[in-house]
């Protein structure tokens, strides 16, 4: 369970400085505000693309959190020390993924009521299934994002490269999460043909978690 200690270390350090948390949260609110200029936010059609809006906000905010995941360790060569420590690459990666997951989920849970107020969306009756979708979608985004954060950590253009690699690759998860969230925010239940999206989301999480854990050692060892 060393990964939990790594996650706790990352969370502690983030909560002390709050650098990516504050930036990510304010960025999310700004995007929520900007969307309101693109269409009529009081219209009834908002529910039909509410999932899409919400997950775009999460994806943009997520990139900020994920960018910091490994970059946080660059000052004072902390990353080299972590890699040289007896902690395995998979444990280190899992710990960092869990920390980013918790941070991103917190931001999502703050954004949801703000979104509900701004766009007149009732989300409370479907909170628990929504939380389930948030957990699955966020895990997919974090696992892939943390891996790409490790891939791009030494690049001078990492702030640009991470979203460029991450967004196209996470489309299956994003697409499924958007669709399922829209269904729930429109007041419907997930069932019938929509289950294919749920299966895709779970499949994405399983496939990419397995691949990431299998390959992360290769990335971290220099």
């Amino acid at each position, binding site marked *: 369970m060393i990964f939990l200690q790594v996650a706790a270390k990352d969370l502690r350090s983030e909560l002390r400085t709050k650098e990516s948390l504050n930036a990510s949260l304010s960025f999310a609110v700004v995007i929520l505000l900007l969307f309101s200029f693109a269409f009529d936010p009081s219209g009834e059609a908002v529910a039909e693309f509410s999932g899409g809006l919400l997950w775009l906000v999460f994806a943009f905010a997520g990139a900020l959190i994920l960018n910091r995941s490994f970059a946080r360790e660059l000052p004072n060569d902390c990353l080299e020390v972590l890699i040289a420590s007896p902690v395995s690459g998979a444990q280190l990666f899992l710990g960092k993924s869990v920390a980013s997951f918790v941070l991103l989920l917190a931001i999502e849970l703050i954004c949801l009521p703000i979104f509900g107020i701004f766009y007149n969306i009732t989300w409370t009756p479907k909170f628990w299934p929504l939380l389930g979708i948030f957990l699955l979608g966020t895990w997919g985004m974090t696992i892939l994002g943390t891996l790409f954060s490790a891939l791009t950590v030494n690049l001078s253009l990492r702030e640009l490269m991470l979203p460029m690699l991450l967004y*196209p*690759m996470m489309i299956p998860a994003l697409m499924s999460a958007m669709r399922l969230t829209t269904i729930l925010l429109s007041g419907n239940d997930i069932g019938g043909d929509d289950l294919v999206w749920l299966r895709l989301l779970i499949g994405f999480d399983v496939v*990419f978690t397995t691949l990431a854990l299998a*390959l992360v050692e290769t*990335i971290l060892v220099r």
Partner: protein
Amino acid sequence: MGKNIRLGIGALAGLLLLRNLYVILFNLPDEMEQGPIYRIFYYHLPAYFTAMCCYMTALVASVLYLTKRNLRYDAIAMSATEVGLAFAAVNLITGMIWGRVIWGIWWAWDARLTWALICWLVYFGYLMLRQAIDDPSERAKNSAVLSIFSFVSVAITYKAIEWWRTQHPGPVLSFRTGQQLIDPEMERMLYTNFFALLLLAFVMVTVRLNQENLQRQIDGLRRRAHAL
């Protein structure tokens, strides 16, 4: 590979493509419902298969690089991806032309089309990542991992017409449907053109590999010159 062999295979591919073009334009009849535009399929589908073969080659070469750490495999993965992207672009463009004639729009946000585009963007990201890393072994290692991840999108693109109800025509080839849905002569031509494009892709990959080897030699010489 020797220059002459490469030239020979290239000439064979060129001749075969010319012969196929003649047969497609003058010997094969129009399709009953679509008319003459259906002929674009003889390039659209084989280009897609060729791109798939290139991505598959990149996947195998990437796995081999990670296990053997030989930079030659990295060069193969990179060359195959670049050529695969070119063929995937042919696939996308021919599909758009067909869509404009049959559907009346250049682009439909249909699952198969969208996935083909996502796949293209994912592999384009692979090339961008390569450009951003200077150290050859670091570049090879990181891009090999990314190539393995990228292949998931290829698998999804392949299955997209089965998983989602799409506007894109469903599978027609007998090896996928288990029955003869199109005229055997048309199906034969699809395979023949696929073979010709595959030969062309092979030549392009070897040319690119050759360039990469020369680049490595130049880099080595430059390092030696700096050391002196």
